[in-house]
């Protein structure tokens, strides 16, 4: 399935990226999406992203909820006129016969407050199953996008369950004779225990502060790419604190505001540097 998607989107001219090296709660947070979607330069990419959502873990007991799963992320910037047709063609490349199934676009407005980002789009349903989150970005890091990108985020486990007719992700055939559960169930159990019970609250709070600090000083040194990694680390620390139940409703808003401020500063710096580079190139 991943190979089919890689092949299809490579043929569409996408740069095939690899997963990012720090914890992300969504493929959108990968700099290949978040930063590259800013500014006036066209960009096409596709990649697998393992996403980490500590709050969603269920100790490997619930067949639909995991703290770690996979997305397949595609960005076409700017979105071509036939972008939906291309997306549907990608489903056909997975062997989905669009005439036999009921494929629908159901309104879904996407918002990621920690990144100051929003867009309009849909959930794509196939016979009632949500298989893709589809978004036209409008703002990232509080900045209006210049070229409107289309983001397609396939839920790989869901898609695989649909294709294999399985009712539990644990039963998915991940490789011949090996199930998804064989590979990940134990990790779900252990990580859920860590996320919900053991993650050290004081240390995480301190880490959040440190990453925030470091992000700031990297912004001052005009290094947006490493600075952005610290935004991601703040975001992950926040998610862990949230899973530990260590954040009250008011604190929550404050934390989100802090991450958003960092994301905005990094986005603006990234844009500044990009336009300076262009200026130099032109000169």
């Amino acid at each position: 399935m991943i190979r089919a998607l890689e092949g299809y989107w490579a043929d569409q001219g996408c740069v095939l990226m690899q997963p990012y090296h720090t914890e992300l709660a969504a493929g959108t947070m990968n700099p290949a999406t978040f930063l590259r979607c800013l500014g006036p330069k066209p960009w096409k990419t596709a990649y697998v992203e393992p996403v980490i959502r500590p709050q969603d873990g269920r100790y490997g007991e619930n067949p639909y909820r995991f703290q770690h799963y996979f997305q397949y992320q595609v960005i076409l910037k700017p979105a071509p006129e036939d972008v939906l047709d291309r997306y549907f063609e990608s489903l056909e490349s997975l062997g989905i016969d669009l005439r036999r199934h009921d494929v629908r676009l159901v309104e879904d407005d996407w918002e990621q407050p920690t990144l100051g980002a929003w867009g309009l789009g849909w959930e794509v349903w196939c016979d009632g199953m949500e298989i893709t989150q589809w978004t036209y970005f409008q703002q990232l890091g509080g900045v209006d996008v210049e070229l409107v990108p289309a983001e397609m985020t396939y839920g790989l486990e869901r898609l695989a369950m649909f294709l294999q007719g399985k009712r539990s992700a644990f039963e998915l055939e991940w490789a011949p004779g090996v199930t998804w559960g064989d590979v990940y169930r134990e990790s779900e159990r252990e990580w859920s225990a860590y996320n919900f019970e053991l993650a050290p609250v004081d240390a995480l709070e301190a880490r959040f502060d440190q990453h925030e600090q470091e992000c700031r000083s990297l912004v001052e040194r005009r290094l947006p790419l490493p600075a952005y990694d610290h935004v991601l680390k703040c975001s992950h620390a926040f998610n862990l604190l949230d899973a530990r139940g260590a954040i009250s409703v008011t604190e929550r808003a404050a934390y989100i505001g802090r991450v958003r401020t960092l994301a905005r500063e990094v986005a603006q710096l990234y844009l500044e540097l990009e336009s300076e580079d262009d200026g130099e190139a032109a000169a």
Partner: protein
Amino acid sequence: MAKLLLEIGCEELPAGACREAGEQLPVLVERELGARPSALFVGPRRLAALLDVEERTPDEWIKGPPENLAEKAAAGFAKKHGATVEELASREGFLGLERPGRPLRDVLPERVDAIVRGLSFSKSMRWDESGIRFSRPVRWTLAKLDGDSVVGETSFGHRFTGGPVEIPHAGEYAERLRGDGVEPDAEERRRQTVAGLDAIGKWSDPAGVLEEVVFLVESVTVLEGSFDERFLALPERVVVTAMQSHQRYFPLGGNRFAFVANGGDADTVRAGNEVVLEGRLDDATFTFERDVQLGIDRLAERLGSITFFAGAGSFADKGDRLRALVEKLGGGEASVEAARLAKADQASELVREFPDLEGHIGAEYARLAGYPEAVCAAIDEQYLPDAAAGPLPQTEAGKVLAAADKLDTLAVSFSLGHKPTGSRDPYGLRRAAIGLCRLAVEGGLAIPRELMPDEVREFVEERLEGLIDVPVEYVRAARASKGLDLGAVARLAEALHAERETPEFDAVYTAYDRANRLAGREADAAARELDRSLLREEAEQALADTLGQVADLVSADGDVRGALDAASALGPAMERFFEDVLVMDEDPAVRANRLRLLLDVRDTLGRLGDLSQIPR
């Protein structure tokens, strides 16, 4: 005359956007094309209108400056309209420009563009360099005058089974699309959906998804599905919510449901939807069983660690306040027990998944734990009424708990400065206030006004003005009364209004008015208490006597009609008083005493409200 077809082809529009466009399109079409549509087609992938038009736009006369100012103004006027002075003509003493009408086909492209740009949506986006904002991207436009394509070439059919669709003549639009598997008319899709559902069986739609489904599909196929009966062990509303708000299905009772597909092979689509629903129900069951294993009492014990409202403590604190309020509202044992358990479901996992079912889920858990039905029902009803015209709690304990919940939310929010401003009311305080009023007025629950801090009382009682069917002045008058509970204020306003033309009301109103006018201004000069020994004149003694006789009968809390009858006896006594007695006596003690007497009259009658609010 010619037939004009205008079609705006879009990527899938949300139902709300379809409705907005459907409202605006006729107006925009008339503005740009000079005629209202004879037919309107609104759906997720196309907005279209058919209309009869003149083939030329009307001649126009652009009026300019008066002829006598030609020297100064003609050149500027001509330039503004892209003409030369020589082209100007004159009519009735004014210069101007004759703009002959043009063939409609020439202006159609710009008019179509103006219509597309003229539609506005509560949420809109941009997608390319055109700068157009629309609910979702516009991918084609088609305008046909009779058989000629003026803008675009063809329409497009069903997304997966159709392709380009030739429309030979504007008038054949709907027919051609139907031939390609698209039903463009929303009304027709609604009719087909309802007919399809009716044919399957007795369906329900408590969440009103029909209105959305009509705009989710271009071709209607109503299918039936079922799920494993073991999921019937879940609370019914959990099942219904999973079906309706997540999947937009229509429950058919038991383990059956109906849904509307946009196409596909019926068996494949049904099987897929069944798997998805069972997945959702499996997930809910997993959560439900974990909650039930803990039980409602253990859940309630966890409330201490869940914040209700920043600055207002935890849900455990909220529970304590509710219990105190319930007691002050005179609630019985069931309502006190229900108050203890009311918020327990906030600690449950199922409420996190189904937040709309708060209260209901707690009630189910209380039932499973064996609590008496009165307690469970009250937990279930605590958030009612949850809409302006929504149903009220049916049980006494439910009413008491629902009132306590709203009183607490209002008091806490106001004390923290979260007051509704303009149209912003994120905490639903208006709804809570209206709910309280309805519990008092329609539900007959005694809600002591003293349970509300001043600001909250003001806010709640202002809602009465819109709620009961009497002019606001009567409500304002009644709000100033000494009525003890919220319901009494409403009943008083209604009674004052009903009695407004009776002689008794007139007598009371006049007496109040005269006492208030004369003594109200001099209140500082009045004696602190009435001294009967200073009453010299017979008329003032008589007034004091009458006042003494009726005082106990004048109350806003009981039979207002009786109170008015009793109080009306003060009318003749006041009349005599004003005929025979000079209030402003030379002796300051006598004067102060008479002022006091009038103030006593005013204050006694004032228990029935500030009658000066009522216009006469």
